[in-house]
């Protein structure tokens, strides 16, 4: 008996099925981590899962801009030495690197998408032109619409900003004259009422909504 000539490198006692199952469990774990990350930015109820690739559009709502898929990818490296030294910290490192990279890309994509949508309809505020951070907040609140769920619960908008910007906004708001707070509260009340009214009008478009026979 002789060892046959092998065109490919030998794979000693490689459990191909087992390795596949292991890899699948790793991808599942990574997906769980990624889901947690995404849920910090998006309500899971607003997350859609499409079965196929391509653009998505709302043909019955022509005002809504069409969107398209963007692929996110991340890669990491593990040295052979880490494996032959059975360094289990590699698992944490790989998970952290991949999830951080995916989060970074996801947030970039989300903010650039929101930014592009806002700019396309002129729904933007320039803090410098506004004169102060608190004035910018007030203008922002003017331009944004509140939304109500079908039970009439209104959710105020969320501000996403870096720590320094947030500090500057808070300080500016704290230092602002009392009229600023009154203006904000008045705006919130008006926006809330408008949101509730919009929801009422939306429901009115149904033939019947929540009324028993």
């Amino acid at each position, binding site marked *: 008996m002789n060892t046959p000539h092998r065109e490919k490198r030998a794979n000693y006692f490689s459990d191909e099925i087992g*390795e596949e199952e292991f890899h699948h469990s790793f991808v599942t774990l990574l997906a769980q981590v990624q889901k947690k990350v995404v849920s910090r930015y998006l309500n899971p109820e607003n997350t859609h899962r499409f079965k196929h690739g391509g653009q998505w559009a709302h043909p019955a709502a022509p005002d809504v801009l069409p969107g398209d898929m963007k692929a996110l990818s991340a890669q990491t490296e593990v040295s052979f030495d880490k494996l032959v030294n059975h360094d289990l910290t590699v698992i944490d490192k790989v998970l952290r690197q991949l999830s951080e990279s995916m989060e970074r890309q996801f947030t970039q994509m989300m903010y650039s998408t929101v930014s592009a949508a806002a700019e396309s309809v002129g729904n933007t505020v320039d803090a410098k032109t506004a004169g102060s951070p608190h004035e910018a907040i007030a203008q922002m609140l003017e331009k944004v619409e509140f939304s109500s769920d079908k039970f009439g619960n209104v959710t105020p908008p969320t501000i996403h900003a870096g720590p320094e910007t947030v500090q500057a906004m808070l300080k500016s708001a704290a230092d602002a004259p009392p009229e600023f707070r009154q203006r904000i509260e008045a705006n919130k009340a008006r926006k809330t009422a408008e949101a509730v009214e919009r929801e009422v009008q939306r429901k009115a478009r149904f033939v019947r909504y929540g009324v028993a026979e």
Partner: protein
Amino acid sequence: MRVLLAIGCDSYDHAGLLHGAERDARRIYDSLIRAEVGEYDTNRSRLLLSPTYSDVREALREALFTEPQPKTFTFFFAGHGSVSAGAFYMWLRDSNQKGLSMSALSLADMFRSINEATPLQSNIVIDACESGGLIQDLGALLKPGLLGNVGSPGLTLLATAAQDQGAAESPAGGVGTVALLDCIDGNDFVQDHKGMLDLVEIGMRVSQRLRASGQNPVVWGLNLFGPSGFCKNPRYGTDPATPLRHALQAWPTGSNDVIRQNYDALWAAYSAIGGVWNPKKFAAVVRAVLSPSTAPEVLAILADRLAVTFAQRAFQARDPFRSAEVAATLAVALLSSIEHPSVAHTAQRLLDHTCLALIDATSALIKDLEGDKYALLSDRGGVLSELHELPLRLTRVLGWAAAATFMCSGDKQRTQAEAQFAKVVSLVLEHYGGALTSLSDAQASGLCIALSTCARLGLRDEGEMLLGLLFNSLIQCEGRIARDDVPRGKALEYLIARRENDFSNSMDLVARPIDLLTVLLKAASLFELEAIFDESLWKIDGVAFSAYLSTNYMNYGVSLMEGGENLVWRIGFDVFKTAEFGVSWPAAKTVPQSPLVAALALAASLLYPDRQAWFLFE
């Protein structure tokens, strides 16, 4: 009825002239038609020289469908061959590149005819340009459904020359045909333990020989029905003038039922051996076919046939140890019937094959490790899975390399196996010390053999180091190693729990009791490390460890052993020092009945790591 159709095509209307194809076909025909060689029916068998397409179709129709239909059909073709649109064609006198499907003999069509005629065995030999392109045709055929299920024909195919290679010719004829004739005539050695030769085993020999001249032949098939009667074996010690039918009559017909019942599973196993290998599934199929309820004579013959067929596939696997695992699985399946002389004889031969395969595989491993210290890392996709697989792989490598030193029956081979084991231990310790860690109870069997072999061969430093690394890592994880049967889909969960030293949500993955600690404590006395181990035993206070002592080592091949004793100890309850464990170990009630049983039990422990070869410590 045995029918031979031999075709040699030198002359072509639309292709270049060949000079040796007709001569090759004539030589094969003349050789196989003889009663003392192939004993094919002289009235029904045909030799066609540079025939047309319609000549061949007519000859095939007569050969396969005229009553009585053949039980064995052998087809030989020498001539131009080509691959077109994913199909392989054998060129005939009037074949034309334009319209090959209408003017050349397609292999797929021939398979369909064979499937319809259902001879018990079909042998196809092709010595042609680009005959390696057959693989494209055959890939789709690796499904039993395409050949029919119950009553499917056994089919073996040998094709010489690879795609884009011309079948080389020597003055004596095509090198493939010459190699084949040398096996038929006994000029080349195939085997000498059976009265008949199978085309698979001839094909393996031809493959070995032709690879040296740059050809890459194809040997393919699952031909398990009836006797392996391609031709008589001239190297077997019987009267060379005895007709083949005498040997064929010795074939036990009961075996066909066993094969038929497991045909689909055998096909699946056959497909998997060269690629995605599932040793558990293979073992299950082998156990089903080689059931102890089968008559011992049939068992021995079946094991032989399976070995020939599967060894050829295993030879093509990327894992050099695959051949050893396959042969050992077959040998171990015979363990419970080993008292029958014919079964013992076959098991010993399979064990010899295992030993040779282990020596080859270990030799390849040493060479690979000397060239690349990472040669033991898998190159498949999932890198992180190596954190789980590598420690297990290392103990398997050490276990199998050590096992060869027990299995080899000849002094020369044993000496070689011992030198190889010493080298492998040294290389593994040098390059993989960090991964020699106690991770799973599945490592117990490999370590049991490796550590006892280190002690037996006087590899004291290596044994101590190996034992020390495994024991220390067991202490570090507080004895919480994984179960031997942890699903790979849960292995990452175990590794994370181990990394965080928090098993609260993964307790079901932890083995309790463990065999690995038993092995390590037994080995401690071999290397006089008891006092050192005793210093650390408090760190695994409460850990339970075990040993299953079978009533009979002939049971070691069955999936679930019954009637033995599950011995259990617990650190801090009945064992506080290594010596207390040693004293409590019961005197051996059973030992392997013979060196053959011992070697098979040892192989069984490597194949099914839920049992250990405790007798190695006696």
